[in-house]
């Protein structure tokens, strides 16, 4: 009885092997749209197309972000699970280190259209340098500054800020009763860590040195993190309540007119879902410091995005690669990225009419010129957790009126760094 139930579990995941009949793949998709259901409805017609073309049936499950990493780990550990999966590109190197995914060496990447097909910056965020990536980019994203056009006009502000100093000045003008200059997602750990990275780059900091050792508490990183927290703590252009935001409440605040600015990646579709018209907001690149600090880089976003990967345990690698090729084909790239408001990960369709809206143009420009991948080291996810948590605590301090000094920031970052060492 026991044995029967165990094999039943196993079969569940790998019904592709069901003797000789139609081929079947299992695909875990990440949540890109406004709901799991929306994604399922978006993907299903495309999967039907794929089945028509190749005879391969794809069973899709849309996995929420909160579960995806744990589910991937469980699948990697057990050697059971889906054939093809979406992964957040910041996990690339960590997941690559598990050795559970098919490496896209020259031959393999050739099978899905070749290396040159993909946007270089996006491909750089698919694994550690010097090794074949274990995923290829699927949807590309970048951070941008979203601003409420009407609030800007009402306050007599002509153009979106291009430096942090300007952002603070206009933020103060825009902060008044029931309205704040900027919304942040203060208790969202990965959001925090993404900002830590971009600010760090601008202030000349690195979170890992060349040998992959953590360098969290350097003066540059301390200054960078402090600059971000100070938007709430010192400049008071962020509602202290944002310190407890972790479920995209900052997006809601912006869409509902409670905040005038927001730093987010491809937020257009989320605004739309909340009833904000596309002409109500403008999109600009994320600001830089007015004078570049020593060693500072011209980086204002991470290369954000979703990659698609194939598990080594798949029973039918060829079918899985065919599916990856299909998902990264021109037609699907246009169709899916258009729906999700993200950018194509292949160069061939960049000029498509679907990506000429203001938002997409800004994001594409940022990706092409001033975005850098998060450190592609196996311990990247630890960095996100530890630094993101430290910043959450700093926001909590700022919100409750405690002074966030340089020393306090350094202490939190040192503590986070020590926990990396174990």
């Amino acid at each position, binding site marked *: 009885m*026991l044995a029967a139930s165990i094999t039943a579990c196993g079969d569940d995941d790998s019904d592709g092997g069901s003797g000789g009949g139609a081929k079947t793949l299992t695909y875990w998709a990440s949540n890109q749209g406004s709901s799991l259901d929306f994604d399922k409805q978006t993907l299903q017609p495309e999967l039907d197309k794929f089945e028509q073309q190749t005879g391969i049936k794809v069973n899709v499950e849309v996995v929420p972000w*909160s579960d995806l990493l*744990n589910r991937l*780990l469980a699948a*990697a*550990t057990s*050697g059971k699970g889906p054939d093809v999966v979406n992964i957040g590109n910041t996990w690339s190197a*960590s*997941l690559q*280190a*598990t*050795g*559970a995914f098919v490496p896209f060496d020259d031959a393999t990447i050739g099978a899905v259209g070749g290396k040159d097909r993909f946007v270089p910056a996006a491909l750089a965020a698919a694994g550690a340098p010097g090794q074949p990536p274990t995923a290829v980019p699927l949807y590309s994203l970048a951070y941008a500054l979203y601003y409420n056009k009407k609030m800007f006009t009402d306050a007599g502000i002509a153009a979106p800020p291009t430096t942090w100093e300007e952002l603070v000045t206009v933020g103060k003008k825009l902060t008044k009763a029931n309205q704040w200059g900027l919304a942040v997602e203060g*208790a969202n*750990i990965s959001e925090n860590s993404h900002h830590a990275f971009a600010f760090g780059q601008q202030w000349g900091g690195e979170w890992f040195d060349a040998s992959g050792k953590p360098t969290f508490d350097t003066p540059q990183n301390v200054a960078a993190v402090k600059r971000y927290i100070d938007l709430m703590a010192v400049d008071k252009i962020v*509602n*202290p*309540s944002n*310190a*407890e935001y*972790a479920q995209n409440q900052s997006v809601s605040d912006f869409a509902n007119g409670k905040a005038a600015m927001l730093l987010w990646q491809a937020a257009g579709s989320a605004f739309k879902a909340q009833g904000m018209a596309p002409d109500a907001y403008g999109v600009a690149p994320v600001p830089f410091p007015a004078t570049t600090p020593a060693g500072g880089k011209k980086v204002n976003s991470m290369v954000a995005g979703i990659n698609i990967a194939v598990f080594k345990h798949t029973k039918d690698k060829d079918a899985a690669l065919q599916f990856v090729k299909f998902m990264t084909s021109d037609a699907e790239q246009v169709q899916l990225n258009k729906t999700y408001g993200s950018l194509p990960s292949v160069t061939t369709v960049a000029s498509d009419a679907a990506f000429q809206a203001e938002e997409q143009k800004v994001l594409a420009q940022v990706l092409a010129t001033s975005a850098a991948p998060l450190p592609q080291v*196996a*311990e990247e*996810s*630890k960095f996100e*957790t*530890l630094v*993101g*948590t430290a910043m*959450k*605590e700093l*926001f*909590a*301090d700022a*919100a*409750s009126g405690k002074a966030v000094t340089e020393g306090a920031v350094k202490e939190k970052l040192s*503590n986070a760094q*020590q*926990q990396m*060492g*174990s």
Partner: protein
Amino acid sequence: MVTTTTAPEQARPSAPKRTGRKAPSRLPRSKLPYLLLVPAILLELLVHVVPMVVGVWMSLLELTQFQIRDWSAAPFVGLDNYKATLDINGPVGKDLLDSFRVTVLYTTLSVGLSWLFGLFAGVFLQRPFRGRAVLRTIFLTPYALPVYAAVITWTFIFQRDTGLLNEVLTTTGLADDRPFWLIGGNSFWALLVVSVWRSWPFAFLCIMAGLQNVPTEMYEAAAIDGAGFWRRLKDVTLPMLRPVNQVLILVLFLWTFNDFNTPFVLFGGSAPEQADLISIHIYRSSFITWNFGQGSAMSVALLLFLLLVTAVYLLVTNRRRDPA
């Protein structure tokens, strides 16, 4: 003075004495009983013992993302994970100790309050009156609700700007400023409230069941002897509830100490320092930071601690009972 103090002891002999099992000399001749036990033992092994042994084994390995696919490749590090975990001067050990302190305080308060609420509600509803069934049902609702749905509702209540709690506090003038409940120092109290809200109905249920076994004559006798409410509670109810309480408090303690759902839903994967319960702490140390060996070492240490507490508790409470 009054003689009611001995009432429980007098009552005890009237309870049916165990007639004892068939004489131990008649050992089972056939192996049938053992055979019948085999499925249960196998399942027990599969469900409890094997995962526990695997957990202990994991705690002796350096198990990170590099090795999870093939555990046999994970280097054996002996007690290194424990050294890092239990070294209270190191960063990992210090955080674990902080989390441990928070958890002990949280568990003590939560179990104590849940038990008190359960006791008083149980005593209050002991005598039949109109509407008793309705009250019982209402009291048990939190226990019947799915954890996630219930705790998510609490997160809405605790939100600073839009939460019900702050709305009430500010409109009634109890607070000038809207305090935070989900971050900072208040998060501990928010967690405690939710925990008590969730677990007191269980205490209530057990105590209510225990009270069914208290003969009404004892209360009558106590009343005739002039015992008031508190005296009856202290000298009749509590002694009669002792066996129930012994198990109830132990179970509540273990559940609360290990509670993962409440803080996880309330705070997400990373709880504020002030409410960093040990279960969440271990989750963060293994799953989120991919250090499974260390997470296992913490889990094993926790298991040993809970075993120790349980053993001491049972020893002490049983010894106290024995002389009676």
